């Protein structure tokens, strides 16, 4: 509940002291921030009768001075320009301005200059600058996520923009939690180091007054890692509910867009998957596909029972009871249809793309050894006509990431086969991935085959056997969390910024993955938190990835790298 309740508290405080009819004006980013934690009906209860985007409100000329305007914006220069224009021609009675991050003095100056009518009643900074998709998972929804893969010389301004947004988001998170952390970062990643250093500068030098909170005995830990340390997790196919929906269909701000599927009634074309509002989803979001099927069947049976009893109305009392329970019944009906639609659609996709077959090989590539067997399996699947292009690409990438150094000849064979079979494959993408995230570039031991202890651990796991072949993969984040829990996060791999150092185990840890998180990782974080180990983990990233998004980022980065190198 931590992240969601933090943002909700901010929104509540914004609205509570202002009486009368209000209009809430947001920008394109704060819309997502507010929509995932606050519903329209709750806004109506707080007498907010109109919600608008700041760009569209500039176009209208209607004067509505009986409304009080509450603005919640990010402090960007475009927003300040919009505000200036609106303050010079005020349409509303009162103006209450809230910004989601720190304002510069020049910006306040500009706003004060335009406020000739003196309509602004208050100007505050409420640090809700991140999208709290789940209680322990946040994202920054950065549109051009691929910039982290490119060196600084290629496009320094975009990279600076990327870093600034990350630093703003992380700073806002810690202000919302009222903590100042010790910062560690992944050694091999330049961008992680840069973000870590800029965050440290912000928290300890530039705004040290603002961040000066009461010190707990143990400072929390902020760990900044790079997506490229674990490129395997976003490429894998998922089999737990939330992760699977995102992988196969796509979740954006806890909404699923089903408009591409035909024959759906209008109210099911876009659905909400939020653990806060949907009890069934909360209970099942981390369950695997087989269990979900059974639970949904049980839910449908319960619902059919209720529906049958509703049809059996004989006395006036029954009728009265039906009308009493009608809202509940309608809600249950909507919920059941939603989940049944999702699971049906996903089953269809699994069937079409033969994902059971593909995923088995993927998990083998990610978890177990055996290069020869792996090569054979991948070759067979590449030859299989019914496998889609994107699945072939993923298989070759997973093989390449694992067996990069063993048998380069066979690797080349796979590349050639992939290029010949997939018409839309952009040549060199796999090689680009290896250049970005190959074995030399990664910080830690992704496959657990570098040091003796890990090899032994893997062998033990192999002997024990797994309960489910499809969910046997554990992301690198899981091992990192275990190391932190045991207090054994290596300084060599994850140095501290500045002269801080970590004594013992922290009680709160925020892991920020530059390049994006996945729902598989957030599942491991949630399960770890539920296991009461004494440490609370929070996960965040610049975006929430699925394989499609990760591949798109790779392609974009490759394209820019090519054009820049051809220019040079």
């Amino acid at each position, binding site marked *: 509940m931590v992240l969601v309740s933090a943002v909700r*508290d*901010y929104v509540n405080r914004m609205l509570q002291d202002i009486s*009368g*009819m209000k*209009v809430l004006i947001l920008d394109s980013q704060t*819309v*997502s921030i507010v929509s995932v934690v*606050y*519903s*329209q*009906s709750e806004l*109506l209860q707080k*007498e907010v*009768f*109109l*919600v*608008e*985007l700041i760009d569209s409100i500039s176009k*209208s*000329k*209607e004067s*509505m*001075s009986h409304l*009080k305007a509450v603005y919640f914006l990010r402090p960007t220069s475009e927003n300040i320009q919009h505000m200036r224009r609106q303050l010079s*021609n005020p349409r509303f*009675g*009162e103006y209450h301005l809230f910004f989601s991050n*720190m304002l510069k003095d020049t910006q*306040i100056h500009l706003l*004060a*200059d335009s*406020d*000739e*009518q*003196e*309509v*602004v*009643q*208050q100007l*505050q*900074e409420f*640090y809700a600058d991140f999208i709290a998709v789940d209680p322990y998972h946040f994202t920054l929804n950065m549109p051009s996520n691929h910039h982290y893969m490119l060196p600084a010389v290629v496009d320094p301004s975009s990279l600076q923009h990327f870093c600034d947004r990350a630093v703003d988001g992380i700073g806002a998170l810690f*202000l*919302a939690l*009222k903590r100042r952390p010790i910062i560690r970062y992944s050694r091999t990643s330049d961008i992680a180091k840069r973000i870590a250093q800029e965050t440290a500068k912000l928290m300890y030098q530039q705004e040290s007054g*603002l961040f000066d909170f009461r010190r707990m005995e143990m400072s929390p830990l902020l760990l900044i890692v790079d997506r490229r340390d674990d490129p395997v997790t976003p490429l894998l196919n998922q089999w737990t509910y939330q992760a699977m929906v995102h992988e196969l269909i796509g979740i954006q*701000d806890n*909404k699923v867009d089903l408009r591409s599927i035909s024959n759906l009634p209008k*109210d099911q074309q876009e659905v*909400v998957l939020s653990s806060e*509002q*949907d009890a069934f989803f909360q209970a099942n979001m981390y369950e695997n596909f087989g269990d979900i099927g059974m639970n949904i069947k049980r839910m449908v049976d319960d619902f059919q029972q209720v529906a049958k009893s509703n049809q059996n109305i004989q006395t*006036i009392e029954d*009728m*009265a009871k039906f*009308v009493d329970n*009608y809202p509940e019944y*309608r*809600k249950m009906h*909507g919920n059941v249809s939603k989940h049944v639609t999702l699971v049906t659609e996903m089953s269809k996709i699994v069937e079409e793309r033969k994902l059971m077959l593909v995923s088995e090989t993927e998990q083998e590539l990610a978890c177990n050894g055996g290069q020869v067997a792996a090569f054979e399996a991948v070759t067979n699947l590449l030859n299989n006509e019914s496998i889609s292009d994107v699945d072939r690409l993923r298989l070759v990438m997973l093989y390449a990431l694992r067996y990069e150094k063993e048998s380069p000849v066979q690797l080349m064979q796979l590349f050639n086969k992939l290029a010949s079979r997939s018409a839309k494959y952009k040549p060199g993408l796999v090689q680009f991935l290896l250049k970005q995230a190959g074995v030399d570039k990664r910080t830690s031991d992704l496959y657990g085959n570098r040091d003796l202890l890990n090899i032994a651990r893997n062998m033990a796991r192999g002997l024990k056997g797994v309960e489910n072949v499809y969910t046997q993969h554990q992301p690198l984040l899981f091992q990192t969390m275990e190391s932190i829990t045991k207090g054994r996060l290596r300084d060599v791999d994850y140095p501290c910024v500045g002269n801080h150092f970590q004594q013992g185990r922290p009680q709160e840890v925020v892991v920020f993955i530059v390049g994006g998180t996945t729902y598989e990782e957030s599942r491991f974080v949630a399960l770890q938190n539920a296991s009461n180990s004494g440490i609370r983990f929070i996960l965040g990233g610049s975006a929430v990835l699925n394989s499609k998004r990760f591949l798109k980022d790779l392609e974009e980065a490759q394209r820019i790298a090519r054009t820049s190198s051809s220019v040079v």
Partner: protein
Amino acid sequence: MATRNRTLIFRKYRDALKSVRVPASSSSASASSAVAGTSSGGGPVIEMVSASLLHPNRSYAPLSTEDPGNSSKGAVTVGLPPAWVDVSEQIAANVQRARTKMAELAKAHAKALMPSFGDGKEDQRNIEALTHEITNLLKKSEKRLQQLSAAGRSEDSNVRKNVQRSLATDLQNLSMELRKKQSTYLKRLRQQKEEGQDGVDIEMNLNGNRSKAEDDDLDDMVFNEHQMAKLKRSEAFTVEREREIQQVVESVNELAQIMKDLSVLVIDQGTIVDRIDYNIQNVATTVEEGLKQLQKAERTQKQGGMVMCATVLVIMCFVMLALLILKEILF
């Protein structure tokens, strides 16, 4: 959670900048502010005049009455709202009154269900009156709620729609509460009725037993009369209760009707319609769609078959008229 209030700094900058700005337009400003000051008690017309002096760029908006002149003195006033806000305020007042009456009704229900020595007709009447009042309030509010529906796609209509939704939710919650209270009261009434009958049966059994212990003929007749009197009383009692139950059922049905009408307006929580970003998007797309529909309608109207038919007929009329005249002339 940390926040930082920048209002003081903002005000400081604003005052500083104002003092820099004011000397440039001091003459005109002081003249018009004098006018505004003297006419602050006057009607909207005078204020609008001063407004145009101060802000020649602002267009005159006859429907809204703003207070721009006084704002420079730091006292901001919120302008007068449009007319439909009165309707919404009335509905809100009704809802509030209905709530207080519901509290009274709960007390009256409790009092009526307690066993009493009187025949409780006073209580029944009180309950009936209260229930009627509340139901009427709800019905009236629901009818007026329909008045708030707005056509068109302006921002004002969005505000109206949202106010309507919010009031609809309140009304629905109230009517559900009323129904629940009534159904529990109904249930307890029925229970009491059965108990009443049982009580009479027990009494009858007791008397029956006693009758065996007494002498036969005379005592039988006396007991029969006694029993008959008791039966008649219990009959009247049940008839009374029956009538009450009937009335309660009636009001339950009325409320069901209200709820059905309201359910169209109320937002289902947890669905996509309850998402802020969905509502913002929808406004944008429906505005565009509305424009497209209007254009399409215009086009089809122009191409309308009706129009063509009418023109053809008119032409035919003229042609016939011409033929007729020709015929007259030639013959």
